[in-house]
């Protein structure tokens, strides 16, 4: 069963609704004692990365997330938390993936936030993208992006710059887009994660 880290960073109604739609059982991780009830973990997140990191630290869950070995999926800001650093609030983050989260502004000539449906190019061997064809569209809403990296980026997206639409390192996965709002392909990502 999937445990959703309930650390107060954004609204999780849409996420739980999507899990319910595709028939994936889930529960809430409100405190450390809840952590052992679940065999995989989702870290949601909307809003400010620096503020989200502080809230996550307050739960006391950080060491459990890092050490458990369970599949972990970070969504949007939840994925950014997996990186080393964010320019949003100049925040030190979990540093599970040694990459930086950077601001779009001043780096691109396009509108910020990057909002809407964009196509992605997933790596063929990433199990999270099983059954997802190249150039499938996903729904993005974000002003900060994770730099693209040959080793850790598992799906690429372009918005003037090429950035990480998804990450993978060992049991850690992250998606910048919102699978819960990305139609059928988004639901497939959630199903794939539930079957890792």
């Amino acid at each position, binding site marked *: 069963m999937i445990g959703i880290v309930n650390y107060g960073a954004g*609204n999780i*109604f*849409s996420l739980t*609704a*999507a899990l*319910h*739609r595709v028939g994936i059982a889930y529960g809430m991780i409100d405190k450390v004692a809840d952590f052992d009830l679940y065999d995989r973990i989702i870290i949601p997140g*909307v*809003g*400010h990365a620096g503020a989200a990191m502080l809230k996550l630290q307050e739960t006391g869950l950080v060491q459990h997330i890092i050490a458990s070995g369970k599949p972990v999926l970070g969504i949007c800001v939840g994925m950014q938390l997996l990186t080393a650093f964010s320019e949003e609030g100049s925040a030190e983050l979990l540093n599970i993936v040694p990459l930086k989260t950077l601001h779009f502004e001043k780096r691109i000539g*396009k*509108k*910020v*936030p*990057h*909002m*809407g*449906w*964009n*196509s992605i190019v997933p790596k063929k061997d990433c199990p999270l993208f099983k059954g997802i064809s190249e150039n499938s*569209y996903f*729904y993005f*809403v974000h002003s900060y992006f994770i730099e693209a990296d040959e080793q850790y980026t598992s799906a690429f997206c*372009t*918005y003037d710059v090429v950035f990480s639409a998804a990450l993978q390192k060992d049991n850690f996965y992250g998606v910048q887009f*919102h699978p*819960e*709002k*990305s*139609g*059928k392909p*988004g*639901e497939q990502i959630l199903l794939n994660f539930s079957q890792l």
Partner: protein
Amino acid sequence: MLAKRIIPCLDVKDGRTVKGVNFVDLRDAGDPVELAWQYSQQGADELVFLDITATHEKRKTTIELVKAVAKQINIPFTIGGGINELKDAEILLHAGADKISINSAAVRNPALIDELARSFGRQFVVVAVDTRVVDGENFVYLRGGRDKTDIRTEDWVKEAEQRGAGEILLTSMDHDGTKNGFDNTLLRQINETINIPLIASGGAGKQAHFVDVFQQANVDAALAASVFHYGEILIPELKETLRTNGIVVR
């Protein structure tokens, strides 16, 4: 490439769709959730629900509607109408709305935009603007185009962006209902002055109008109601037309 978005708009009152709907295979054309599901299946990129419920008591049905949509629909949606303070928006957020749209309330109390953006993030805040030309200049109108203000549309849109709007939904009241096409000149002019997404509204009558608004005004999204509801434009065909014209769509 970031795709241009096609957004059907549904008017709802007391939890029911009000404008006529002419889909062949709908069991209940007045059920906004079923209509929303149809649109999501057809390839709509997003949905806007405009709540015209008159009384405060009936707002509860709107909240229930938002919850039902969030449960069953897998694309983003915005709800507008009746949002006058932070609390109204917060209830909708927790009911599962991805964005809220504010119109007259923002004009009456511009600081509401700042408060909403600070509390929920600017991606949550769509500022809807109704505009009409008077003596060659565009002015902001309130109450669905009935009440004129002295605010120039371009000034208001810029102010809304500065205060924290995440998107602008611009409706030309001169074009709305005419089916003669969007106000591409105004939309291009506004689009050049802001750095947040712009949704075009008012005037869609045929597929070519969508091609025109994306090519001429380079807006991020185009919204329409009746042409979709009456089946005059089918979204899969519209997307094919846009693709043929070199416009990136999902």
